[in-house]
């Protein structure tokens, strides 16, 4: 009895060190998992921050990662539909079964925008569940962080207090920042932004800007010269000054439009690490997005850095 006790005592440090192995499909989910999990989890991300998340290769090495994971964090809005299912079949990891504790579906509780009333691919490649880029609204990050904390607690009860504390810390940080971000972009409410793909409705909704002009004529359909000419005409008429371009997109058509309209091409990303200076995580990514957008809209750099405290 005594020896068993000693054995357990010796084992304790190892047990305590056993980190949850977490795989996140996209880097934004990975960043939030790190915020909540801290040093109690080991997070691996499948999609790279600079990569088009719709078209990630289902590499066999991902099968190995999923096979050995305790939890899978996914967006749950069909963004990963083209590549995750075949990986999970190969991974044969019952911990990640749909509905199981290790399968963290982050979209729980999210109010989806742009849910199509009818499914018709003549309208382009639309997502049946609604627009999947919901983490571009920081308020949704709190819901996702809550989902992740809840899942981590279910998987590692012993560290639940830590996860809850991390969630509280993250949420309060986010509240403070969000107030600052809203304040910073408030002067530009109602202004229009041109984007390549319709991936910004949540951002637009939160910050009161209009992102309803796209370089793509329809989702997933590349820009045609005729469409670009129309976009240029509308931008001139409506004095649109900012163009969003994600790191994986060809800047050429955006630059053509910029040359013709005098607008600024702004390098933006959905994922921490997608543009330089955002590697630090979700909050840093939004600091960058909001601050550079404010500058592009015409606020001065000084004003931007004054309102948004650097991390």
């Amino acid at each position, binding site marked *: 009895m005594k020896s068993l006790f000693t054995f357990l005592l010796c084992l304790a440090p190892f047990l305590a060190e056993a980190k949850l192995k977490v795989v996140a499909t996209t880097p934004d989910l990975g960043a939030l998992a790190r915020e909540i999990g801290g040093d109690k989890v080991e997070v691996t991300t499948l999609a790279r921050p600079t990569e088009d998340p719709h078209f990630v290769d289902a590499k066999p090495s991902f099968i190995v990662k999923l096979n050995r994971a305790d939890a899978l964090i996914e967006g749950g809005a069909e963004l990963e539909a083209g590549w995750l299912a*075949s990986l999970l079949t190969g991974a044969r990891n019952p911990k990640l079964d749909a509905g199981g504790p290790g399968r963290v579906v982050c979209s729980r509780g999210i109010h989806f925008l742009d849910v199509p009333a009818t499914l018709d691919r003549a309208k382009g*490649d639309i997502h049946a569940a609604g627009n999947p880029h919901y983490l571009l609204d920081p308020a949704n990050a709190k819901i996702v962080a*809550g989902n992740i904390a809840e899942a981590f607690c279910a998987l590692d009860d012993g560290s639940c207090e830590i996860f809850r504390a991390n969630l509280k810390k993250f949420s309060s940080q986010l509240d403070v920042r969000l107030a600052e971000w809203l304040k910073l972009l408030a002067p530009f409410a109602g202004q229009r932004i041109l984007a390549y793909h319709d991936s910004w409705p949540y951002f637009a909704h939160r910050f009161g800007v209009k992102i309803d002009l796209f370089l793509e004529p329809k989702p997933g359909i590349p820009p045609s010269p005729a469409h670009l000419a129309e976009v240029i005409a509308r931008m001139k008429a409506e004095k649109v000054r900012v163009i969003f371009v994600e790191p994986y997109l*060809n800047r050429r058509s955006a630059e053509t439009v910029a040359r013709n309209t005098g607008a600024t091409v702004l390098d933006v990303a959905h994922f921490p690490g997608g543009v330089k200076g955002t590697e630090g995580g979700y909050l840093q990514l939004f600091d960058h997005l909001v601050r550079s957008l404010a500058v592009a809209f015409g606020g001065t750099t000084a004003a931007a850095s004054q309102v948004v405290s650097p991390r």
Partner: protein
Amino acid sequence: MKTNNLIRWSAALGVSVTLLQAQATNEVELIKRQLRQSQEAFEKAVEQHRQVINGLFRRLEAVQASQGGVVTAAPPATARLSGTSPAVSGAAAAGKSPWSASQPITLARSGPAYMNISFGALVNAGWSTASDPSAQLNLGDHDPIQRGFLLRNAEIAFDGAVDPYFKGAANIVFKLDKDQGTGVELEEVFLQSTSLPANLQLKGGQFYAAFGRQNPQHPHAWGFVDQPLVLNRAFGPDGLRNIGGQLSWLAPTPFYSELFLGVFNGQSGQAFSFRNPGEPDAAGVDRFHGRMTTHRELRGPGDLLFVPRAASSFELTDQQTLVLGASAAFGPNDTGPGRRTQIYGADAYWKWKPARAHGGFPFVSWQTEALYRRFEAGEDLPAVMPLPAETLRDYGFYSQVMWGFKPRWIAGLRGEYVTGSTGAFDAMDIFRGDRSRVSPNLTWLISEFSKVRLQYNHDHGQYFGIAHSVWVQLEFSLGAHGAHPF
């Protein structure tokens, strides 16, 4: 005082209502409809959760009562309703309120389905210097087999989770023959386990054997219009596809390694080099490689077709992936008693895709397979031209490079060579003899769901000399198709 307040609030409300009315009526209708849908879904979900919560609470009460404890918390019976901006109220509720935003309340989700259903068609058109391409040039079942127009692959695919233990899939292929008759093939129907222990996985049914890289792929996933010659030689027009089972194991190596063992009946033209009756000759006698075939029932497990495979994958860099594989197939053939066939294959696939790829472009991939077949042909002495028992040895390879040089455009180049030892029947056997083929092609993906491919084939064969062919292929797909493996 109270009345005053009420009036003030009503006035404020009235102002906001007026503001709302100022908006376009169609938008109002749209929002009303979405709101109604959302509310219905929300209330349904809330009701479900209320039932769950109440059930749990009753259980808690029962357990605590049996332990002599006291019920401390009141049941959180009501959910806080969100306002016009659910994201904000959801976030606010994520804190301490009884209703957690992280509870699965799904608002206005559309199109939940138990399975993916898709339809895909490959329509070909083209011309060849050979008047009948199906005679010698294009022996694959989905290949362009005649000049002009053809439709050799219209496929209905189903896949989904059967239950928590299995995934199921089926592929039914329709094709138009030369005489416009419709051929139907139950190409694949299989069940795949999802919850076996020890990293094992079972597959059972009718399916493509895991031999090499291209054999298990459906034609819409191929890089070229036609089947590689070496696969056609070893596995016949349909590829190696049979009824049976397969056990696979994901090895605990730091890189991806998987071992497969397939066991099949090994019967029919879909097990071409094995218990295949072959084609009837002018006299109606079934022959394969010239020999009269004898159908035999299974005498023991040794008469089954065994297909082992090992595959590994390595991340050479962050942007380069390599997959290597080695496969084999062993089983009896029908050309004589005790006659057996062995096929060995090696395959490699390499792909480069940069960190800033858009829509999967640009990329470069290289795919190569080499196969060797040892076929113990039986003797056929009563034949018009008596054939001795002999061992036929065939081998060949193909190598192809696909270059996605700009979004939606892929240029491809494939080179192939097949040959074999001389056999007593070679002079008339279209599935033997030296052949080589060079095929450049260009593919334009009009969208994710349609594509056009233009391919030129320069064929050289021992039995037919040189042939030139140009084929155009149009593909479209409808519905939801399961994700393809790497």
